[in-house]
């Protein structure tokens, strides 16, 4: 119904919109999200023909190009066929006219002569948007913010427009009013196509069917709302979602480095992007369809930095059985599992410290056959025991500088400078006294930070942290993790975080992989797994994850405790359990409460169960 082609808009020579292509069909709710200043409002106003700047391109509405339409024709379209609710709720209504009059006027200016009919229509719509009928005669100053927003919506929908543009429809409303307004808006989505402009992602998620992410006047990602939110593919979208406080995700808030500017050549996001390459600064990427998504990125979205598939056995004991995992740029993948599940083996195999029976490792898409010096420049590891992982014969300076010596980067002075810099980054003093200390002079936290500094000194892209904070007390651990999260935000560090602590993984990871007896049994977005675990093993891990209260007295309805005290999950009566895991069946079968006959006979495959994977015949659904 509405097609926008190559739309460019500028004010005073500053180009705000650069080449926008959009399509809006009947029944669609398209949300445009992005930070403030990315051109969202400009886009809405351009469609309304109310932009003060100049526009080029085409805005086709029912076959007519609105940009070349004469003003009088535009006026007749405005409010009747395309309506808009503007951002400013407080001043959006004329202060001197009653609500009903203003809604009536919207009908009357489009040629209806009969005032009675207009009045009836206005009342009907005002009732539909849920405004109390005692308020119809009120003036705007007598209404609350929510009531004003309802009135503004009524005013826009009174003529049954084909397209309704909503500019921040829920900004500055409290959560309950917001929910009510969204419910009101949903009443109109069947008849009217919506263009929802918002920085409030939860509103967009609730209201829209499709989502377009606008940055620097270009659409960087577009797709069905659910897909985009579950798996953002553009680094900017991921940054937006990470910085948006909500009840669904569990990772700590992270921002997007840098600031937006409209004077950027090439990809508008490249100055803030952590995976930029040379071409990003040179030319703007064209939007390409990839899977269920339209994405404009030279790198095709967030790149998979490390792809691992390996098997390893120590004698007859299969420690890793065809483990497959992918670590994306700027992402934390937490590898969870009890001790003996093969976590450390996996880390060491990736690093090449253990020789795998069978392996296929790809670094940035390229197959790794030998661990060259370049590999270690990109991938670094922090070991489990910091006190032991630093040589006792080396002082801090030597320990941290050693990788630089091996990689022969710069002269002594530059190396010293770099060491001080990286020590500063991990919040350790860079003075000579400290540099001369030996590991046994350091506290546990300091030693760990020295180990991290050693890993970071080469500026790696990937950090494998193997239980690297489990030996530390919680406050030091918190500081170190914050440091790692900051590095991730600033330069897109990818972290493979190996831990047995689910509570910790929940706060720092984007994705979670649960390892059991050398197999991944469940893998997916952290929040999904935490809130809706499917595999009984994951559920068991969650049941015994740290809580700050007595498990037995947690009130009914609280998610984890209920399950912990729940005895309803009983194995089928008469089922014979073997005393330990057999090589034939599911490796959790002998401990599983939901076990059935089949579990002992076959091994479940890891199957996709969008947006995650699970290896279980009888996944538990709440």
């Amino acid at each position, binding site marked *: 119904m509405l097609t926008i082609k190559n739309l460019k808009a500028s004010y005073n020579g500053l180009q705000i919109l650069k080449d926008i292509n959009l399509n809006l069909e009947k029944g669609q709710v398209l949300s445009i999200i992005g930070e403030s200043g990315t051109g969202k409002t400009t886009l809405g106003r351009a469609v309304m023909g109310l932009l003060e700047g100049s526009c080029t391109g085409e805005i086709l509405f029912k076959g007519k190009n609105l940009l070349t339409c004469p003003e009088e024709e535009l006026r007749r379209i405005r409010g009747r066929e395309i309506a808009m609710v503007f951002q400013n709720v407080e*001043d959006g*209504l004329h202060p001197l006219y009653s609500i009903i009059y203003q809604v009536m006027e*919207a009908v009357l200016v489009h040629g209806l002569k009969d005032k009675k009919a207009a009045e009836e229509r206005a009342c009907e719509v005002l009732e539909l948007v849920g405004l109390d009928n005692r308020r119809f005669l009120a003036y705007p100053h007598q209404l609350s913010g929510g009531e004003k927003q309802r009135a503004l919506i009524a005013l826009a929908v009174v003529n049954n427009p084909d397209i309704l543009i909503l500019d921040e429809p829920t900004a500055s409303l409290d959560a309950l009013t917001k929910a009510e307004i969204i419910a009101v808006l949903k009443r109109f989505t069947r008849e009217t196509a919506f263009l929802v402009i918002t920085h409030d992602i939860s509103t967009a998620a609730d209201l829209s069917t499709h989502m377009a992410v606008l940055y620097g006047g270009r659409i960087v990602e577009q797709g069905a709302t659910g897909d985009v939110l579950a798996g953002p593919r553009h680094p900017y979208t991921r940054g937006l979602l990470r910085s948006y406080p909500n009840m669904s995700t569990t990772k700590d808030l992270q921002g997007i480095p840098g600031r937006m500017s409209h004077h950027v050549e090439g990809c508008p996001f490249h100055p803030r992007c952590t995976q930029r390459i040379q071409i990003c600064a040179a030319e703007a990427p064209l939007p390409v369809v990839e899977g269920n998504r339209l994405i404009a990125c030279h790198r095709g979205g967030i790149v998979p930095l490390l792809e691992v598939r390996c098997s390893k056995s120590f004698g007859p004991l299969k420690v890793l059985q065809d483990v497959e995992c992918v670590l994306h740029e700027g992402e934390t993948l937490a590898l969870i599992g009890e001790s003996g599940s093969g976590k450390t083996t996996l880390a060491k195999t990736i690093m090449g410290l253990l020789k795998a029976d069978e392996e296929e490792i790809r670094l940035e898409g390229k197959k790794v056959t030998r661990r060259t010096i370049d590999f270690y420049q990109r991938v670094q590891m922090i070991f489990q025991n910091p006190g032991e992982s630093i040589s006792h014969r080396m002082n801090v300076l030597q320990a941290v500088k050693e990788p630089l010596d091996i990689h022969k980067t710069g002269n002594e002075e530059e190396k010293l400078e770099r060491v001080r810099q990286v020590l500063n980054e991990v919040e350790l003093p860079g003075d000579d006294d400290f540099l001369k200390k030996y590991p046994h002079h350091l506290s546990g936290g300091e030693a760990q930070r020295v180990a991290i500094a050693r890993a970071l000194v080469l500026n790696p892209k990937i950090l494998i942290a193997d239980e690297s904070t489990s030996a530390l007390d919680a406050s030091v651990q918190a500081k170190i993790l914050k440091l790692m999260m900051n590095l991730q935000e600033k330069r897109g560090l990818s972290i493979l975080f190996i831990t047995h602590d689910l509570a910790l993984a929940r706060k720092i990871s984007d994705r979670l992989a649960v390892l059991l007896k050398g197999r991944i049994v469940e893998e997916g977005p952290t929040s999904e797994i935490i809130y809706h675990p499917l595999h009984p093993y994951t559920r068991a891990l969650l049941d015994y994850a740290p809580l700050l209260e007595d498990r037995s007295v947690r009130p009914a309805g609280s998610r984890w405790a209920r399950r912990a005290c729940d005895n309803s999950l009983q194995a089928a009566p008469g089922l014979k359990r073997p005393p330990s895991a057999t090589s034939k069946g599911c490796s959790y079968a002998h401990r599983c409460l939901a076990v059935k006959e089949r579990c002992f006979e076959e091994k479940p495959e890891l199957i996709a169960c969008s947006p995650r994977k699970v290896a279980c015949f009888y996944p538990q659904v709440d």
Partner: protein
Amino acid sequence: MVFTGYLNKIHIKSGYIMQECVQARHVPIRNKVFKKASVLNRASLLNYVVALLIILTMNFFIPRLMPGDPLQAIYGNEALLVMTPELQEELIHRFSLDRPLGEQYASYLLSLCRGDLGHSYYYNAPVLKVISGFLPWTLLLTGLALVISTLVGFLLGVESGSRRGRPLDQFLLGGIMLFSGFPDFFMGIMLLLFFGVFLSLAPLSGALTPYAGHSGLMLVVDLLHHLVLPLAALVLVRLTATYLLTRNTMITTLGEAFILTAKAKGCPERVIRYRHAGRNTLLPVVTAAGLQFAHLVTGTLFVEIVFSYPGLGSLLYKSLLTRDYPLMAGILLVLTVVVLTINLLLDIFYPKLDPRVAKCT
């Protein structure tokens, strides 16, 4: 009322319970709004009464605080020279000058209540009667000047403000600023010289052609013929303030969010200009018109003198020349009352213009 139709509809649609509910809730709210409005009027009325009393008191005390004999202040030295002791006795008695100040004040107020503003010795008639012969002309002139200057200033301001920076706006702004530089009597003199003396298009003085015996339409034409120049002088000078205020308010109002809403509704340009932006601009303009009225009255006094227009200005001038103190005091008092009344009327009218004022008392 627009709303009644809707109430009926609810009646039919939702059955009697809903209807009763709506009516029962709705009616008291309307009464409440009405009550609030009348409370406001009573309060502001009180303000005006207090203001009037203060003015009356000042009017009473000022001649009595002047140095020398109040009688001397009233009649001047020459009159006192020829005054016989009997006459002086009688005058002192008449002004109650022989009694204590409090009693003098009381009798002053009482006589005002009776409509007695004193006796003009020059016209040898009661002051009120003299004034009532001149007042209508002044009211006609000021009233028309106020209405026309506000109206024209507003219209020009709206057109100019909505065309900011374009030729019409620049022309109007330049031209009107030029006129605003002149004082009104000077403008009067210029108009009189040009149209009256050089072009002989308008009469030089008076409000009607004396002894012409016009009646009906001819009377009106004659009246307007005399009125046009003094009115033009006043309007041209008074126009500026309204025009500038309207233009500036227009420019800021056009940037408001509700104008954008109106545009998005699909309102035609003219409707946006007047119904939306103009209506909002009217508020400060009306306030300013009320405030300006006092200035307008003083301006009128000068202009009347220039055109020998038989209004209070000319009368005041004459009473000054003849030192007819009771007349002077009477004129000032009447003008004060007129100004106060106009302001009171505006105050009563204003809530109808701005619903936001109605709610705060």
